[in-house]
Structures are given as structure tokens and as C-alpha cells.
């Protein structure tokens, strides 16, 4: 098509939006609301995942050693543990260090600790982190076999709880996300379809005057894209402002709750929103217009 035709098509798209103000506002509002919902769910899932990851990364295997193990054996053990598949970090903690930590931790019950200060009933230990929390129990099993290891603990119950909780959040979140994306696409496609239905008489007339499908489709397509884009930009602005505020507020009042505060994932969400808005607008109007071109 000629440049002048493209110019005309662009003008038509703009005209369509202006003429059907009511429909256009309705469509943009619908896109915005749907995308906002989507963004919210996306950010919630992100944060839950982040939280789950943070918790998981704190899980570890503690191997208590036999009393008075000679230093060379400790070094050997260190090497053996590091060799186990899936082990990412190994730290040696003497029983003196362990007692110090315990004191720091139990503010309330520190009386007991003071009482046992001199005799320190604790044991030396290795603290072993796993690359993947799923492997923790396997690693614990292998470590327990090693000579010199008296007892292995890896918070079985808590680990299992956490693993199932995070998998619930991950899969549930993903399912939720897919459901919301589908819902958003459907709502927006509906909105655009309605604007097209409202103009089917017009389309029929155009066809009778000799317009090709392309000439009819393009303005609608662009109109859909522009409406989708408008909705997405409004949403992106709202999400940016809203999330910044939430991050600020959380970091001020609940600093210990791990919230995703780096810009990278948030920018990703915003970019997704805008691409999503455009694609949805384009696809929505293409699908909607198709059935009216058979005139």
C-alpha cells in the first residue's frame, strides 16, 4: 500500500478512537483494570517466590561431630563433605562458637546458658549448604555415613513444610498467573470485539464500495493496538508508582520481610505489561474483525 494510504489508515485509527469515545474509554479502562490485576498477581507471585527462595536458602544440614576428633580427620571430613554432589558450602563451627551463637539467640532463656557456660555440652559441627534445597535430605543421608559424624540434623519437619509451602506457592502462583493472563486476554478481546460489532454495518458498506480486507482491517488493528498501548501505559505508570510506594513503606516499617526491590524484575513486569497490551490489542481486534470481513 502507498504511503498516503498508510497515512489515511493511521488517521482512521485515530478517528475511530475519537468518534467512539465511550467505547474507547471503556476499552482502555478495561485493559487497564485487567492489566493491573495481572501486574498485581505477577508481583505477588514474584514476591512469594522471593520469600520462598530466601527461606529455602537458609536451610542447611548440620553434622555434629564426635567429641575430640583430631584436626586432620576434621580436615579430611571437610574434603569428603565438599565432594558430595549438590553440596555448595561447608562451614566448620566449633562448640565454643556454637555456644556464643546460642547465647545471642536465646535472650529469654539465657539463664540456662549462663548456668552451663563452664561445661559447654555442645559439639563441634559442620554446617552444610545445598545448591538445591530438594537435595538436602539426600546430602544429610550421605554425611551421616561418614566416620566421625555423630549425628546429622537438617530440620526435617521444617524443611518439608517449607518445600511443600513453596511448591504450593510456585505452582499455585503459576496457575493463578496463567488464569489471569487468559482472563485478561479474554476481557480485552471482548472489549475490542464489542467496538467492532458496533461498527459492522460500516464494515459491510466499505466492502460494498470496493475496500480490500486490508484497508478495513488495518485501522481496526491499529486502533486495537493504540487502545491496548494506552491501557498498558496507564497500568505501567500506576504499577510503578504503587509498587515504589509499597517498597518504601515496607522497607521503613517491616524491613525484615524480604520484598523484591531491585528494578530489574519490576522493569520486566512493566515491559511485559506494555508488550502484553499491544499484543492483546492487536490479536483482539484481528480476531474480532475477521468474522465481519465475510460480507
Amino acid at each position, binding site marked *: 500500500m*502507498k504511503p498516503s494510504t498508510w497515512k489515511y489508515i493511521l488517521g482512521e485509527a485515530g478517528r475511530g478512537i475519537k*468518534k467512539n469515545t465511550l467505547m474507547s474509554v471503556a476499552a482502555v479502562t478495561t485493559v487497564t483494570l485487567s492489566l493491573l490485576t495481572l501486574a498485581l498477581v505477577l508481583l505477588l507471585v514474584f514476591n512469594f517466590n522471593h520469600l520462598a527462595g530466601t527461606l529455602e536458602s537458609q536451610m542447611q544440614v548440620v553434622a555434629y561431630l564426635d567429641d575430640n576428633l583430631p584436626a586432620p580427620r576434621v580436615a579430611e571430613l571437610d574434603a569428603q563433605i565438599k565432594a558430595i554432589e549438590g553440596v555448595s558450602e561447608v562451614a566448620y563451627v566449633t562448640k565454643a562458637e556454637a555456644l556464643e551463637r546460642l547465647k545471642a539467640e536465646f535472650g529469654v532463656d539465657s539463664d540456662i546458658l549462663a548456668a552451663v557456660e563452664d561445661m559447654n555440652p555442645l559439639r563441634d559441627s559442620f554446617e552444610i549448604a545445598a545448591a538445591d534445597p530438594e537435595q538436602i535430605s539426600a546430602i544429610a543421608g550421605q554425611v551421616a555415613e561418614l566416620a566421625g559424624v555423630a549425628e546429622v540434623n537438617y530440620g526435617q519437619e521444617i524443611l518439608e513444610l517449607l518445600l511443600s509451602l513453596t511448591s504450593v506457592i510456585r505452582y499455585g502462583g503459576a496457575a493463578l498467573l496463567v488464569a489471569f493472563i487468559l482472563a485478561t486476554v479474554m476481557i480485552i478481546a471482548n472489549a475490542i470485539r464489542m467496538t467492532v460489532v458496533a461498527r459492522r454495518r460500516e464494515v459491510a*458498506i466499505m466492502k460494498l*464500495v470496493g475496500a*480490500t480486507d486490508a*484497508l478495513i482491517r488495518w485501522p481496526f488493528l491499529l486502533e486495537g493496538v493504540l487502545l491496548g498501548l494506552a491501557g498498558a501505559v496507564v497500568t505501567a505508570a500506576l504499577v510503578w508508582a504503587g509498587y515504589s510506594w509499597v517498597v518504601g513503606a515496607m522497607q521503613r516499617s517491616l524491613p525484615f520481610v524480604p520484598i523484591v526491590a531491585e528494578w530489574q524484575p519490576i522493569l520486566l513486569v512493566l515491559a511485559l505489561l506494555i508488550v502484553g497490551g499491544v499484543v492483546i490489542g492487536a490479536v483482539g481486534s484481528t480476531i474480532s474483525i475477521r468474522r465481519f470481513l465475510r460480507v
Partner: protein
Amino acid sequence: MIHIKHVSKIYYPRRVVALQDINVRIRPGEFVFLVGASGAGKSTFLKLLYREELPSEGQLLIGGKDVARLRQRDVPYLRRRIGIIFQDFKLLPDRTVFENVAFALRVTEASPKEIRRRVPTVLEMVGLAEKERHYPSQLSGGEQQRVGLARALVNRPPLILADEPTGNLDPQTSLEIMALLEQINRMGATVVMATHASNIVDMFRKRVIALDRGRIVRDQERGVYSNEAKHLEVHPG
């Protein structure tokens, strides 16, 4: 130009037989009046030509090409070579008079310069130069009809199909419009016009094809509206 062979048209689902075994040949440059009572099948005849409807039976050739066999994507090109004046005008309600007429040029990708030149000329011809920025809802019935006419002519199509183009016009304006169609016909365009205006048909003495309940009952060169003695008499109060 037009060759219609044994064409019938049945509308489903009510099985309304609108045309039955129609055989017509129209040569390039002819001017044909299509007459007949309300519901005789005149509009259906025209609709088959511009492919709004497909024939139920028979074959319909325009310029040697079978209209029914046209590929979907070639239909717009057929329609661009036909100037159509619709019985119900079919104007785009949210476009000005200028834009409605210009649209027939836009579909052919005419240059903006061309559009700015041709549209005012043709609006002048139908007497609507002043109403160029009006919307259809802001026009009288006859004015809307003339916008439709302007749109059909602006492209200078070789074939013009006019469905009752003077139905909403007073006798004087009707004659002006007829003079216009005749002039275009003299310049080479083929014109097929469905009409109820007996005085116009009788005055212009062109070929007349008369339909009655879907059948051609008369096809006459230099014909008149009706061969019957005189229109039925009614005794006014």
C-alpha cells in the same frame, strides 16, 4: 459487458424465489431501465451483479468473468469498477459528505491531490457543494441519495448500477440527475437503473427490462414504463 444465463435466485431459509431463469445480455455503453412492481426482483438483479448475493443457479458474467467464481480477494476489484447507487443509500454515518465520496477513491489508493480535485467536482455535479462537511444525519433524504450518487460516479466506473436513484428526489432534481447519468452513459459507461419513475422511463426511451415476480416479462429497445393502456384508475375522494 454483462451476460446473464439462466440465473435464478432463491433466498433461504424462507425459500423466496426472487429471480427465475433470467437471460439477459447487456452490451458496453447501453442504458437499461429495470422496471417492475415492488418486490419483483430488481434489487436482487443488481445485487447479483455486484456480488452482494450469489446466484442460486445459472451463470453471470461481467466482462467475460464469472462473478460467482471470483476469488474472495478479487471481489473488491470487481466492485471498484462498478459505481453502485444503493436503494437505502448506504452512507457511512460517521463520515462527512466529503469523506463518504472520497472513500470510493481511497479504496483505489488515489493520491490525496486527486481526491482533493475530484470530490468537489462531483459534489458540484450533484448539487451538494455546500454540504461537503455535513454528516449524513444532517442531510435531507434527497441529499443523502445524491451523496450516494456522487460516490458512485467519482471513480468514473465503466459500469453504473443505480437502484431507484430518484426515489427521494423532486421531479426537477430527478431530471438533473438523469441528465447527469445520460451524459456519463454517452461518455461510454454502461448504466443499469432500477426505477419506479414511470415518467422518467417514458421520457428517456431507453431499453426497458420489465420484471414480474422474478421473471423477465418484457425486454424492449426504446421502451416505455408500461405497455398497458394506462395506469390503473383510482377515484379520488
